[in-house]
């Protein structure tokens, strides 16, 4: 059974001036120096390894953690590793105002939840969400709650294709289930 309600500790990707970082590209998420790696379990240690201020993320992240990022998260290259590195760390989901197109697809195909959240910039700016807060998100209906502060907010729930692929456990499993139908 796929999980739909996630509770986890939040990481808000801000720069040293306290602003939510926009346009984080796939080289900042997973640098091209490690593209030759094909084993997902080896990818976690390089997550955000080229993002100023966040290079020690892999040593701090814990399974079940949730990431909030600025708009156009995952701009740039088509590398699947930029999604898989978070899966390797067992990050449960990523939310951002928008994602790079290829990045978003890659995440959907991997069965890794990526959720658009229009109000994320305002939430981060007003510190209604902060690193270390605990949040609870139901990805079927897009209802989110910061359990540390009681603040509630909305994220876009999974689209139909996204949900089908997620429920199947990824694109390959989904294709398999289509053939069997």
């Amino acid at each position, binding site marked *: 059974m796929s999980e739909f309600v996630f509770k986890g500790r939040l990481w808000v990707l801000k720069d040293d001036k306290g602003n939510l970082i926009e346009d984080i590209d796939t080289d900042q998420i997973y640098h091209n120096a490690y593209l030759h790696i094909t084993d997902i379990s080896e990818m976690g240690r390089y997550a955000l390894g080229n993002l100023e201020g966040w290079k020690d993320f892999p040593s701090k992240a814990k399974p079940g953690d949730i990431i909030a990022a600025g708009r156009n998260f995952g701009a740039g290259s088509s590398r699947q590793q930029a999604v898989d590195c978070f899966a390797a760390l067992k990050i449960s989901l990523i939310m951002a105002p928008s994602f790079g197109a290829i990045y978003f*697809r890659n995440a959907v195909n991997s069965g890794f939840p990526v959720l658009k959240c229009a109000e994320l910039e305002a939430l981060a700016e007003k510190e209604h969400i902060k690193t270390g807060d605990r949040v609870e998100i139901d990805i079927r209906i897009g209802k989110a709650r910061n359990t540390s502060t009681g603040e509630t907010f909305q994220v876009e729930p999974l689209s139909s294709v996204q949900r089908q692929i997620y429920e199947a456990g990824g694109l390959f499993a989904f294709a398999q289930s289509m053939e069997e139908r």
Partner: protein
Amino acid sequence: MGYTVIEKIIQRHTQQEVRPGHIVWMILDVRSARDFGGPNVVKNFQKEYGDKPVADRKKTFFTFDLSVPACSLKYADSQQICREFARRKGIKVYDVNEGIGSHVLIERGHAASGSTVVGTDSHMNILGAVGSFGQGMGDVDITFAFKTGKTWFEVPETVKVILKGEFNAPSSAKDLTLFILSKLGTREAALKAVEFYGEPVKELSLAGRITLCSMVTEMAGIVGFVPEANDRFLKEIQDLSGVEYRPLTADPDARYAEEIEIDVSGLTPKAAAPFQPTNVKDVKDLSHVSIDSGFIGSCTNGRTEDMKAAADVLKGRKVKQGVILKIVPATRRVYSEILKQGILDDLFESGAVVSNPGCGGCAEGHIGLTGEGETQISTANRNFAGKQGKGNNYLASPRVVAASCVLGRIASPEDL
């Protein structure tokens, strides 16, 4: 209600109704993988599908362009993994001698107008330059495409960009592209298709269209098209690819998310400063920036016309002592053309390093990497922090890169 260009192409490749926001299953005419992503595709395929064949080996390709020939043992392994898989499945490999995959697909007639093409290259949408819906995808998508010949796709909205005015040398398609990028940023075209109209783009050659369409990726767009074409372009693309080019036009009543007008009159040479391609400035305002190196090439500016533009600046001149100019032709065909037309000679005599064809340093390939503290001016398409090493990268046209390498500072050919 009529269709935009992208909607027409998708509609020809699906049974489902095509409207922006609809998610459809789309037939793919060509699917490809590079030496980057390719080994992951092979690994996925073997895990998921074992000894089963690919959907259609005639429509499936490997193109090696990143580390060519392999500059590390890892890439040597990666390429050999792909070669052996390709032999078993009967798939054609455009190997390390051929050049940038997306360009090779154009030259070999695999990216016909109106076709759908995917590959493990985020600049695969460059194929919009020849009216093909190219799309970069990750290795899971490409594995699935190899096996089924299909993909799911959310039909994007389309933005219409109408360009007005005219511009002259030394400004080029790259300056035009950087100017448009400075206007659209990463928001206006985000997750949308773009159609470019107006005299400034109608007159663009294939190389110029490639430059413009390649950087739709940096605009965060899905793909860009230039529906209007002159006879010179039609002849150029047909002679190059050997396949008939049928211009694709949008219906008169097609619906656009937005129409944006941009006046390009008096366009001056531009450069994108570190660390965002949208951080575009006038070259004349960067004349204080001294450079250590230059790079001419990449999928954005690696055609013969780009090499000639640089050679015309460099002919009879020398790259400044202490500056290294690195040049990488896009493909073997480009290499052959610059060799036969004497362009290579002009580049070589200026003191430049000219390598075999390929991507260059964009994804840590051979040529174009920077060391800490190094400032490079490059014709490539991205200058993200740390991407090509720890140095600073400025993005500009071949002419500006050539002039800058002669003077040792960021400069326009007019400064020579």
